[in-house]
């Protein structure tokens, strides 16, 4: 087997990449680069899964890496990019409750809280190589919470989708490091995720769209009728 210490330090570097990507997703206003950063984050996940495979030699991890690459690095980013071109929005300037700086500070605080909370819940003896695996669990949960902040603080539905996807990456990291689930479950989750992304992006075309035709269609329904009757 390869040198475990070397692989572990590579995983640690990849963790940093994941967190930096998450910080970028939280703070950016540029929608076009958001998708590429998400793809990069997913690619990092593939890297982590491969490194873990080198340490543990569990074929499920290899399968996870392949599925993640196919769905989250290729299919989903491509699909979202196509949709973005259609609805012609390049920027998301509106934030609900938090602006980017506060969000970043808050996410740092969150990571600290997660670290303390998890160190109480997970007894160190329960995992094989405690340091790395505990660290992975912390990163996973923090990534989830950061993604959740994106989902709740952004206004555009398409940015919310990115937040959700980033949350899901967090769950995947947590799952990889804390325990190994049966492969079929991982596979079904990916299918579920793809359906979810397809549906939300299609629906968000309706919400985010600046296209005239969509609004014209809405006028046919009773919601707008009263206004039309007035003059």
């Amino acid at each position, binding site marked *: 087997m390869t040198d475990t210490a070397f692989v572990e330090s590579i995983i640690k570097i990849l963790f940093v990449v994941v967190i930096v990507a998450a910080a970028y997703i939280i703070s950016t206003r540029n929608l076009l680069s958001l998708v590429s950063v998400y793809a990069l984050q997913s690619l990092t996940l593939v890297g982590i899964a491969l490194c873990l495979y080198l340490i543990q030699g569990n074929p499920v991890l290899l399968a996870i890496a392949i599925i993640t690459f196919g769905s989250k690095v290729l299919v989903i980013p491509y699909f979202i990019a196509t949709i973005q071109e259609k609805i012609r929005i390049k920027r998301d300037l509106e934030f609900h409750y938090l602006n980017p700086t506060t969000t970043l500070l808050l996410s740092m605080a969150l990571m600290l809280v997660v670290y303390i909370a998890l160190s109480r819940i997970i007894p160190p003896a329960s995992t094989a190589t405690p340091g790395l695996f505990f660290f992975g669990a912390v990163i996973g949960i923090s990534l989830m919470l950061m993604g959740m902040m994106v989902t709740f603080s952004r206004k555009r539905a398409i940015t919310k989708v990115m937040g959700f996807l980033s949350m*899901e990456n967090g769950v995947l990291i947590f799952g990889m490091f*804390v325990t190994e689930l049966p492969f079929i479950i991982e596979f079904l*989750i990916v299918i579920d995720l793809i359906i979810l992304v397809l*549906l939300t992006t299609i*629906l968000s075309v309706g919400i985010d769209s600046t296209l005239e035709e969509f609004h014209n269609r809405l006028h046919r329904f009773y919601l707008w009728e009263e206004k039309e009757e007035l003059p």
Partner: protein
Amino acid sequence: MILIAFVLATAIAIAAIALSHTNRNMNAVSIAHGLVFGAITLAALLASPIPINSFIVGSQFFYIDHLAIYEMLITIIIFTLSAIYAGGYVESLIASGELEKGSLRLFYAAWSLLFLIVVLAFCSDNLALFWIFAEMTTIISAMLIAVLSAKENIDAAIKYIFIASTAMLFSFVGFIFLFQVSRSTIPEGTLNWTVLIQHASAFPAGMMVASFALVFIGFAAKSGIFPFNTWLPEAHAKAPSAVSALLSGVLLNVGIYAIIRMLALVHQTAAIAIVSPFLMLFGILTIAIAAFSMLPQRNLKKLIAFSSIENMGILLVGLAIATPIALFWVIFHIMAHAFTKASLFLSAGILHRQYHSKFSGDAPDEIRDVFRLQPLAAWGTILGGLAIIGMPLFPIFFSKLFILLQLGTVSLWLLLAVLVLLFIAAAAIGYFVITSFTQVSPKDAPAEIEQYMTPLSMKIPVIVLIAMILVLGIFFTSGEIGFINQIVMELRF
């Protein structure tokens, strides 16, 4: 065998929907779909004793015990009756241009798929598999809400998806925790409920609390429990009424079902002492938030939606008490609430067609001359309203009474608080009915409102449901009691 029959029947139904062109044909298919599911379940019930252990069922992924059968029967009854109702309702939606003809196939196909997935969810033994099915129900029911393609419907659907799915990810982390917990006694680890319940008493309490809390977040969001209740009134009020009946009568049960299963595991350990007050707190907060939101509500469907939240709160309070008697009545309340709420939404749907766009959104209802124009829907709403606030002769009276009596043994102050809140909720429904149903236009005024001719297919489900809740409230058969007792026993309370 039974699962293959379900999947096959659904595949045939969806194929038939894809081939047919008119609303009438597609509707006939979905009614037949419901009847076939009912027949399959009854045949399986007669052919083998519960828990059913035939091919595939009884494998490591699927398992059908009394609770599963019970939830499946409720699901099948509500889906079939709503399908009958949908025929006339969808016809009218198309006539008024709210539903495009092109969306018809999507609507009925999603309907059939949702039916299959809810039933499969109740059959799953593996909790992760259950999670996936529950997540799919969110996606498909959001499609049924967004099918009207008005902007406010899409808004409601997106809100529903984001709140429910985001919270459900926490549930999944909870299940990963549970898997890790199970490895303390079973080396290879498992998420199969039947195995877990046998070993649950050996699980460490601290980890069980963490796992339950995470799982609770997700399924609380799914069943509209405070603080994740914000999507529910929007989604239930804006969906087509036939779909609202499903959302309230069936999909809320999916969330509560998971909480019950998880609580049964926690109940085996010392963790129940920590989890119980936590559930009680959320239950009472949920009832409170719903009761106070109902009071100023002038929109019938939203009022009914908030009442669903209130009932979910009552269920949580019942679960928090965690005695066998309380659990018995919680199980009974699930059925009573499902049927009553379905009948209320179906009645509200008739009123919605009569008074049209005026209350599709947040606008208050302008109901006039309701007894002249829609006598059946008016009486349906009144009887349903009496049933939901727990008047004697209706089944909810018994479940509320016994849950409250059990609550009294825990704390009299909590009992008093819940009683006041339930009274506020009842007053809100009463106030709405009295103020809006007594609006009569002057005798000599020209009739401005054209009467909506309610088709028979929309009247029958309302009558059947009300007859069912009356029968449920008056007759307690020993079979019914025995069945629910079986459920309580299988949950090891």
